[in-house]
């Protein structure tokens, strides 16, 4: 199902509103409970630049520049509103340019993350922020958010995350372009539909990971970054002789937050799921926590190396880079850092760097 089909199905069959949601973390459970389809905007990669994109300087992240173009295009007219989580300075800038200088004239909502460790003031704030957004969305949709509806939506997303986690599990299937396509389809699909598709995919064949590494299979990588664009990255990895076995992309693995026993109060449950999120610099997690998380993911997936794949000009990711590189290397995990634009093909230069890196990893494996 394409993005446009998902929107059209939602309108015609569920008669709900469609909300464009910006990266990266937002309480999607609230939207589902209020029959709002979340359509995430990670660029998109394939826009044709006009004067709209030129309103944002070239040294700003391409997600923001592409989004500016997209939201000024005809295609954006099928969206009923926008939700801006407070992720970084550039997205914050986009939010205010779009609404204060146009062309966006439909409703805009904001969700502010508490930055830093979730201590008492931050917990209080987060809960109020959930409630504040819920009230605004209720007014917008005319729907009433009952505790039951919210509880059901939270349970659905929690289950979804559990399945997404399984799909990304190192002992399950290795991650290829098809798995990523499925995982990213959730950026616009109605959660129940997405869940069914993931269930179906999980019924597929699994691979014995430890065996594969021993038998000289492809190099096993932990991948981290913002968003896996351009999508050719996975094919390039495959051609280079590597596969992702663990994922910390902000668009994918870094948003999975399954909680075993959800609290009964839905807002407590939202809080619990938020707390279970993997560490991310955009929410102010410490560098050590991030490194600890990456190490744990790499170990449990038996990853042999790490690919840090950033989008150009994405500042939050850049700050952790030297520390991640040093500390993971000290633990025997070589790290390759690469930056890409959103659209187009992966450059030959980057493909060559990937090949050289994978060769080095495989060589190290051979030498034991």
């Amino acid at each position: 199902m394409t993005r446009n089909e998902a929107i059209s199905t939602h309108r015609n069959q569920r008669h709900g509103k469609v909300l464009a949601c910006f990266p990266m973390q937002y309480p999607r459970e609230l939207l589902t409970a209020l029959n709002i389809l979340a359509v995430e905007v990670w660029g998109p990669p394939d826009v044709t630049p006009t004067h709209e994109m030129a309103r944002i300087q070239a040294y700003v992240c391409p997600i923001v520049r592409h989004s500016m173009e997209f939201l000024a295009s005809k295609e954006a007219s099928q969206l009923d509103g926008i939700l801006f989580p407070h992720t970084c300075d550039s997205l914050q800038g986009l939010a205010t340019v779009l609404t204060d200088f146009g062309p966006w004239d439909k409703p805009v909502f904001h969700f502010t993350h508490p930055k830093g460790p979730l201590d008492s003031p931050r917990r209080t704030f987060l809960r109020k922020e959930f409630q504040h957004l819920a009230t605004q969305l209720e007014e917008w949709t005319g729907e009433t958010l009952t505790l039951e509806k919210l509880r059901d939506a939270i349970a659905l997303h929690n289950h979804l995350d559990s399945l997404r986690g399984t799909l990304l599990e190192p002992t399950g299937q290795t991650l290829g372009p098809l798995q990523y396509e499925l995982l990213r389809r959730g950026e616009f699909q109605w959660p129940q539909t997405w869940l069914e598709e993931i269930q179906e995919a999980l019924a597929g064949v699994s691979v014995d990971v430890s065996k594969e590494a021993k038998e000289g299979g492809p190099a096993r990588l932990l991948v981290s970054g913002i968003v896996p664009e351009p999508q050719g990255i996975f094919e390039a990895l495959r051609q280079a002789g590597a596969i992702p076995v663990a994922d910390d992309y902000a668009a994918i693995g870094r948003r999975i937050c399954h909680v075993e026993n959800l609290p009964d109060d839905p807002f407590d449950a939202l809080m619990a799921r938020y707390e279970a999120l993997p560490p991310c610099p955009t929410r102010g997690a410490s560098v050590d926590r991030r490194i600890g998380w990456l190490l744990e993911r790499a170990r449990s997936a038996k990853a042999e190396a790490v690919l840090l794949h950033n989008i150009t000009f994405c500042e939050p990711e850049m700050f952790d880079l030297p520390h991640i590189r040093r500390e993971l290397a000290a633990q025997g995990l070589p790290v390759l850092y690469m930056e890409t634009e959103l659209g187009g093909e992966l450059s030959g230069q980057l493909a060559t760097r990937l090949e050289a890196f994978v060769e080095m990893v495989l060589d190290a494996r051979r030498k034991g």
Partner: protein
Amino acid sequence: MMLRRMQYEFMKNAGGTFLTGLQRYQAFKKRGKRGARPPFGPPLESVERLKEIMTRYYFTGRYADGAVPVAWVTSGFPSEALVALGYHLVYPENHAALCGARRKGGKMCGAAEEFGYPRDICSYVRTDLGSLLSKKTPVGRLPKPDLLCCCTNICQTVLYWYRALAKHLDVPLVIIDTPFIYGEAPTHHLEYVRGQLDQFIEVAERIGGKKLSPEHFVDTVKKAQRASSLWGECLATGKAKPSPWSAIDSFFHIAPVVTIRGSDECVDYYQMLLNELTERARKGVGAIDNERHRLLWDNLPIWFLVRDLALATAERGFQFVCATYSNAWAEAGSQIDPSTPLDSTARTYTSVYLNRDLDNRTRSLIQLARDFDADGAVLHSDRSCKPYSVGQVDVRNRLMEEEGIRAMLLEADHNDERSFSKEQALTRLQAFMEAFDE
């Protein structure tokens, strides 16, 4: 500790006084040689006092760690409680700007890049981290902090920056998170900031080993407010024609309100500066000889270019009379209410210029241009400062189309001279100025 404290106090008083005396003597000798300096007007007398204050501040800092608690603080951090608790404060942004103005920014950025920080990170950060990693600074030495204090009201970059500092220095980090304001701040956002202030004070007390005296705190808040108000009055003298000083001057004279606000020395300094500026305005003494056009500056200064910029504009009779950057420090101060110090601090520090939506900021910028009768504007499109720069294309268009103010975007970087072509920038500026006389 005791010995270190005695050394600190001695350096603060005797050592600092000796050094500033020496500096005054050197300045006197230099002034004797310098004479007239067209196209600029007579230099501000207060500059010498400014140099004394900043020299003493950095000199004393060399002896601060181990003597008094030391905090490294973002420029927008509500630092009044730290001052009242006797902390010595270091402002890495101010230090980075100083490095930039001395054209050492690029070299220090290079040191951070060698460590692995990418070149697209803000150049203040790279300058500061480069200085830390290379152990090089034009101020001799910065004291090691006991506490890192970061407030996100100026950007989110400071959050990543201070996380990195905490990692390098293994020092506790306090984050005051100020939600960005779209329109009006919801009540729970202000309550959130207020709650963090309480928590921050507890941490600062514990690390500083001292309880915050409410009287002392209020007194510090009053002094900070007074200094900000005086700073605002100083800036307002620029409305006179000719302007008695330039916005470029203000980029340097802003240093005390950033670094030592809350002190008597800061208040006294701005009173002195105000007296001098008022007198110059009364006598019609301008910052440049022949003020023909009045410009507004938007965004951070290009620290390594300020002198060239001042000269290039002054030679053609153009004068920067106001700047959103300098003005931000005056706007905030006036909102602090010493009768409700914590509540008003939360409100004030949340609603600083850069933490407000573009509509709000544009109105403020236009008001500034009107108040100072600016007929042109230079918007520094700063690749190192996204929150300040995103939206400038639209702001420029609005200035031109709705206000009839000629405006240009000047793409540069505030601290890294390597990311910049001086000739290209000055040529663009020349072309912009020529258009005024067509």
